[in-house]
């Protein structure tokens, strides 16, 4: 396997975004994942989301852990810094990078193995710290890269390719994130870009920790009958709890008609997310109600998707810390070093 640079074949007719870039400008190198892997579709949705938000690629930072899913940051935003860190520890690296420079847009890519087993602690604590990060868990119910072992998200009764049945109870990252107080929780399906792209856009715009669980089938090890993370199962049991639509501040004039019974949530930068419930009376701004409704769907074996919970506020890790605006990379030296005069007066306190 080696680095393959994607040929840049620019189509003159490709539409341009607000900053004059085409979707091609948001791509990375060619994927080396298996053909049909759900992760590649998620990558395409990420490319689309960044493009439509008009984020300058180099102002984004993409980080990941280890796994097939964690390889994907090479496949998007070729002009952004990327960091493929260690297994399960992307949240801490992202937290550190964000601590150093809060002015960039952070996206973290992880897998169900990376997030829910080895990295469960870091996942929970990044939520607790409310790091301003869009955290994407590409969830396929298996460890793809190590060839098909069950992951902690595998459902009871789910069958492995080798024919073993999983009996251990699954950890549902969505329920977990809601319980832990995550301020943005959503689930999408890599096979449904129409739903996934607006969710990703809203996640990138959200201030604080935005969690997106993406059911992302593994065609090599978990796309057979008996798997609850297969394309087939997901399509059949897919329940769209909300339909989300992001209206960025700049595009307010072309805002679509807000459907009847829609809830709108204003993000910190003034953008608006519109949530519609295709059926039922789901309230994505009421944590308790959302949790209850999701539990009921889960009991019925349905995969609830959409923007499942959102709470917009202006606080994140930096506001808790009282960090000054701007980055902490190279502030004015006078702001950092107290200098010898102050040191000398301090010395008197040590006598």
């Amino acid at each position, binding site marked *: *396997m*080696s*680095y393959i640079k994607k040929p840049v074949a620019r189509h003159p007719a490709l539409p341009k975004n607000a900053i004059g870039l085409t979707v091609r400008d948001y791509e990375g190198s060619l994927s080396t994942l298996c053909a049909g892997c759900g992760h590649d579709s998620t990558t395409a949705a990420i490319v689309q989301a960044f493009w439509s938000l008009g984020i*300058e690629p*180099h*102002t984004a*930072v993409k980080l990941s852990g280890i796994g097939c899913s964690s390889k994907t940051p*090479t496949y998007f935003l*070729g*002009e952004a*810094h*990327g*960091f*493929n*860190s*260690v297994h399960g*520890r992307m*949240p*801490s*690296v*992202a*937290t*550190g*990078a*964000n*601590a*150093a*420079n809060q*002015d*960039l847009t952070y996206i973290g890519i992880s897998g169900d193995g990376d997030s829910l087993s080895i990295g469960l*602690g*870091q996942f*929970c*604590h990044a939520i607790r710290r409310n790091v301003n990060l869009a955290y994407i868990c590409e969830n396929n119910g298996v460890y793809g890269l190590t060839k098909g072992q069950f992951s902690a998200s595998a459902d009871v009764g789910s069958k492995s390719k080798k024919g073993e049945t999983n009996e251990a109870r699954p950890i549902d990252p969505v329920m977990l994130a809601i319980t832990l107080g995550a301020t943005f929780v959503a689930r999408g399906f890599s096979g449904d870009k129409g739903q996934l792209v607006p969710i990703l856009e809203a996640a990138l715009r959200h201030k604080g920790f935005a969690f997106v669980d993406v059911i992302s089938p593994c065609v090599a090890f978990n796309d057979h009958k008996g798997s609850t993370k297969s394309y087939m199962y997901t399509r059949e049991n897919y329940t769209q709890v909300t339909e989300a639509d992001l209206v960025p501040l700049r595009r307010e004039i072309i805002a679509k008609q807000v459907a009847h019974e829609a809830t709108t949530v204003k993000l910190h930068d003034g953008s608006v997310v519109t949530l519609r419930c295709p059926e039922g009376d789901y309230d994505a701004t009421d944590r308790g109600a959302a949790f209850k409704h999701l539990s009921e769907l889960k009991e019925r074996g349905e995969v609830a998707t959409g923007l499942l919970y959102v709470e917009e506020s202006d606080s994140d*890790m*930096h506001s808790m*810390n*009282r*960090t*000054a*605006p701007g*980055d*902490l*990379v*190279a*502030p004015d*030296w006078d*702001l*950092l*070093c*107290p*200098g*010898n005069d*102050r*040191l*000398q007066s*301090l*010395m008197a306190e*040590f*006598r």
Partner: protein
Amino acid sequence: MNAPPTAAAGARAADRRTSRVNDFAIKIATVNGTGSASANGMLMQAIFRMGVPISGKNVFPSNIQGLPTWYEIRVNGDGHTARTPIFDIFIAMNPQTYAKDLETVAENGWFLYDSTWPFDPELLSGRPDVTPLGIPLAKLCQENFKGSRTRILLKNIAYVGALVALLDLDMEVVEGMLNEKFAKKAHLLEANRVALKLGGDYAREHFACPLPIRVESLDKTSDHIMIDGNTAAGLGCVFAGATVAAWYPITPSTSLVDGFTKFAERYRTNEDGTRNVIIMQAEDELSAAGMTIGAGWAGARSFTSTSGAGISLMNEFLGLAYYAEIPSVFFNIMRTGPSTGMPTRTQQGDIFSTAYASHGDTAHICIYPADPGECFTMSADAFDLAERYQTPVFVVSDLDIGMNDWMVPRFSWDDDYVPDRGKVLSADELETMEAFYRYLDVDGDEIPYRTLPGVHPKGAYFTRGSGHDKYGRYTEDSVLYQEVVDRLKRKVNSSGTTSPQPIIERQEGAQFSIVTIGGCDRAVREAIAHWNEEGVAVDFMRVRAFPFSPAVEEFLREHDDNYIVEQNRDGQLHRMLLLETDIEKKPITSVTSYNGLPLSAHHVRSGIERKRA
């Protein structure tokens, strides 16, 4: 406990009966949680302010309340402030440890105890040379103060009062300290005064004050301060411009971040209350390491502080930072291992585990402060080295340096200091470049250029801990992989000439040399001073960084007899010197101490004399 004193130490003890001004040691035994720390600190400070060199060592349990704890104070007009294992006067406030405490009282020493309760004279039957000094401290406090908490606290002040009389401390100095301390608490000031007087009056009435051991004012401390190494390192990080700190609590490193937090609050807070710093208490040391590395990668001066167990957890990340070339600073305040070990005792047991941390071929820059003064200066050195060489740097300190109060020259800061941020390309530089390759050695100095996120599209690269070639591209090609790891080895090794150089002191006609590291410095110097008094000249070298400077090997080669003195069982520095230089085994001998207590000159002398016999 400690080995019995050597013949030489015994000979010195012989004239203890005669007056010994400014040359003695005090040990105070209490129970932790009884508030003795501030009384002991006061005693130290009084002697320090009288201009007499002093040191204090806290020997405490890994527990919050109710277990034995000791505080050792050494007074030495000549400026020897290493630990001493025998004590001229014992303040025995904990009946549970009387018997054990008596073992460390010097010949003809004094044993001050609380005579409120019966004292078994049998205890002293084996030590007729020791003079008991019974003072009914609890009774005096019972009669004069209200409230059990107050009585317990003031009992500590009462023994300080007795010592003021017994050791002839300057009452004006002590009064001055009380006035400063309780400037805003008049009622406490009065109570403390009364307690001091109670102890002092009783001592004067019942014993011949002062004792032959006593303090006489000198002028040897006016250019000095008393500070612990962790506070000094925390302050150093503020001065060095560190903006990101991530940590997980562990004794004995916690007070480093506490110090950083305190000074950052003072010096990094803007008028509107915002701060030019971020301090994150992580969920564990893995996360603390990840945060430190993430922040270093994004361009900030970032550090974490931990101890051995934390270093073990950080290992995977350390390999990543080494291979992906990410500046980051790791303070390791060593404590006694292995495993949880003795968490409140000191040791230099992580010399190996820091230098070669992580799987695969690695080597890390380590610097070894000897005292709080170097903790302050080496903080800046660490960030400079980390950013210059784009690699993790360890500051390897220990519990003795980190948590005890040491007398060191006042700190000063060079206002012309410019941080070495290393080879970081700016947006302008990137703009004019054809192409940027992260791991390409453009200048032939083994150090590639790096870029920071958010600066320029041309600077973008993908950081990975997996195999990469010099262009930063993923590779599984043997040759391309080797090219990068070979350069890494040369890069880290090249730091040997710019990291803190060894301290070398040669004496005319030296019979042998002592090579040491970190906090052993003072005990070794004192041992050499004693040898010198006996007409034996000794050469001295203190190693201050790994990879070793070429000067280290030169020094070893110059001598037929090098004794490597360090505080761990296995002679880790000794072994590393053999591994990392071309010196043969024979002229190098290991001398170790690993009892968990700070090294003493007595230990150095007896250890070396035994090997030379």
